[in-house]
């Protein structure tokens, strides 16, 4: 048995865009245990419901996390709409779906880039981020913002997309698909990339289930769980199958995310083909009264929103459980027994979003 060494990892570390601290217990080069320490980004935004009224809070909800900002806004709005029994126009539901899937594309491309950076493939990182900019351009054209666009509101959406722009998005996505194929091919077949991902950080199906993993983490271990099949927003009217892989290693997780990018392209195209005419929002009167629980499939997995209101402008309680929070136990499991050099890529493999986790 070798000597035990403790290596502190974070809070400031080159591969981590966000601060999280891990104490890595090492035996020679092997990690035997990882102890997380969090709280660097905690803001306490759930309590902000007492200071901002339920309409204003939409903008706070969007800032739970800047990467899946739209989905957080949507989840919050859906919860309030369910409490207040608001039926939003069908066109708004389709627009929400389009933006949500674009967010998924942008988030997965961002992750692919960061993971390429983590295993030292700089040019691949740059290429994926170059493609990601095209998605951001669509955001900017349709909403005005690049990452936070505050376009979701209670009762619908705030902006419409004209038929010409929808056509244009369709065309951009068709062109993008070719480039995406080229780049994702590298992730899936380049031998040096495969060397860093194949068989690394294996999470068995049973472990994924027991530890409550969500999103690509669970899907890569063979658990078929995708909340979009509930049919919220316009997902009920689109055809898709949850993507699963069975190997449970980093390679499988990369592959799930890549397939989800293409799935998102397909879903957006389907939505553009059948989007109905009509209004985009309804007027909201009164205050919410009651409680509700919504689940939304984010790029990183299922997020849950809980709201309790008692008929006043200010909500009693807002609670969100985000996917990274659910994936941390699974991460600690995969870290056990890995070598020190694989730690960065394993931390990235859950697609950590610390600002979601700590709120």
């Amino acid at each position, binding site marked *: 048995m070798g000597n035990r060494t403790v290596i502190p990892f974070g809070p*400031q570390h080159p591969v981590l865009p966000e601060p999280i601290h891990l104490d890595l217990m090492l035996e020679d080069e092997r990690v035997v245990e990882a102890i997380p320490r969090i709280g660097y980004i905690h803001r306490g935004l759930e309590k902000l419901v007492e200071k901002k009224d339920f309409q204003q809070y939409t903008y706070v909800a969007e800032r739970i996390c800047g990467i899946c900002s739209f989905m957080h806004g949507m989840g919050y709005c859906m919860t309030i709409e369910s409490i207040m029994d608001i039926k939003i126009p069908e066109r708004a539901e389709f627009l929400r779906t389009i933006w949500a899937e674009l967010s998924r594309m942008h988030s997965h491309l961002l992750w692919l880039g960061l993971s390429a950076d983590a295993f030292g493939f700089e040019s691949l990182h740059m290429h994926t981020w170059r493609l990601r900019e095209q998605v951001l351009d669509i955001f900017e054209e349709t909403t005005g913002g690049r990452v936070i666009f505050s376009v979701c509101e209670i009762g619908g959406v705030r902006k419409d997309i004209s038929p010409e722009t929808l056509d244009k998005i369709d065309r951009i996505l068709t062109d993008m698909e070719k480039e995406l194929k080229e780049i994702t091919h590298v992730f899936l077949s380049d031998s040096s990339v495969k060397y860093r991902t194949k068989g690394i950080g294996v999470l068995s199906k049973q472990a994924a289930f027991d530890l409550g993993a969500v999103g690509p983490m669970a899907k890569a271990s063979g658990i078929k769980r995708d909340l979009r099949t509930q049919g919220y927003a316009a997902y009920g009217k689109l055809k898709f199958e949850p993507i699963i892989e069975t190997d449970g290693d980093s390679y499988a997780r990369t592959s799930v995310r890549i397939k989800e990018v293409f799935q998102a392209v397909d879903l957006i195209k389907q939505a553009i083909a059948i989007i109905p005419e009509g209004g985009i929002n309804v007027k909201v009167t009164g205050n919410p009264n009651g409680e509700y629980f919504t689940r939304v499939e984010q790029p990183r997995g299922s997020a849950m929103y809980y709201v309790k209101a008692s008929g006043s402008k200010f909500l009693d309680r807002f609670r969100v459980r985000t996917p990274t929070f659910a994936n941390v136990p699974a991460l600690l499991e995969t870290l056990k027994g890995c070598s020190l050099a694989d730690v960065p890529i394993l931390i990235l493999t859950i697609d950590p979003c610390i600002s979601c986790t700590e709120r």
Partner: protein
Amino acid sequence: MNFIKKSPWILHYDGSSCNGCDIEVLASLTPLYDVERFGIINTGNPKHADILLITGSVNEQNIPVVKQLYEQMAEPKAVVAVGICATSGGIFAECYNVVGGVDKVLSVDVYVPGCAARPEAVIDGVVKALGILEQKQKRMRKRKYR
């Protein structure tokens, strides 16, 4: 400024931002904006960095981290606060765990507004910080030869 005399290296630290500003900082390093072509690099090592770029507000737990990072940097150094969170706390100013903008802990040289701050604005902020770095350097030289 028509040309830059120095390619500053940047140390990015995420205070308690929502990620919106972080990904915009990273976006300014990648192909569309590409400041790397001017030799501006995002380094992970405070000892190599000239400019400390902070996104997000500070709280009790990260104040020591921010201070430590700043102290480890070599003189002359500049601090750029990116986003309205880093400037004043922004939308989260009323949260119980937010102390306020970065200027509660360090003296900030450049404030970059926006929520999220756009890459153009971030780059502009870094260019401003370059000018400040130069002044600081001049002052340091004077002190040395007196």
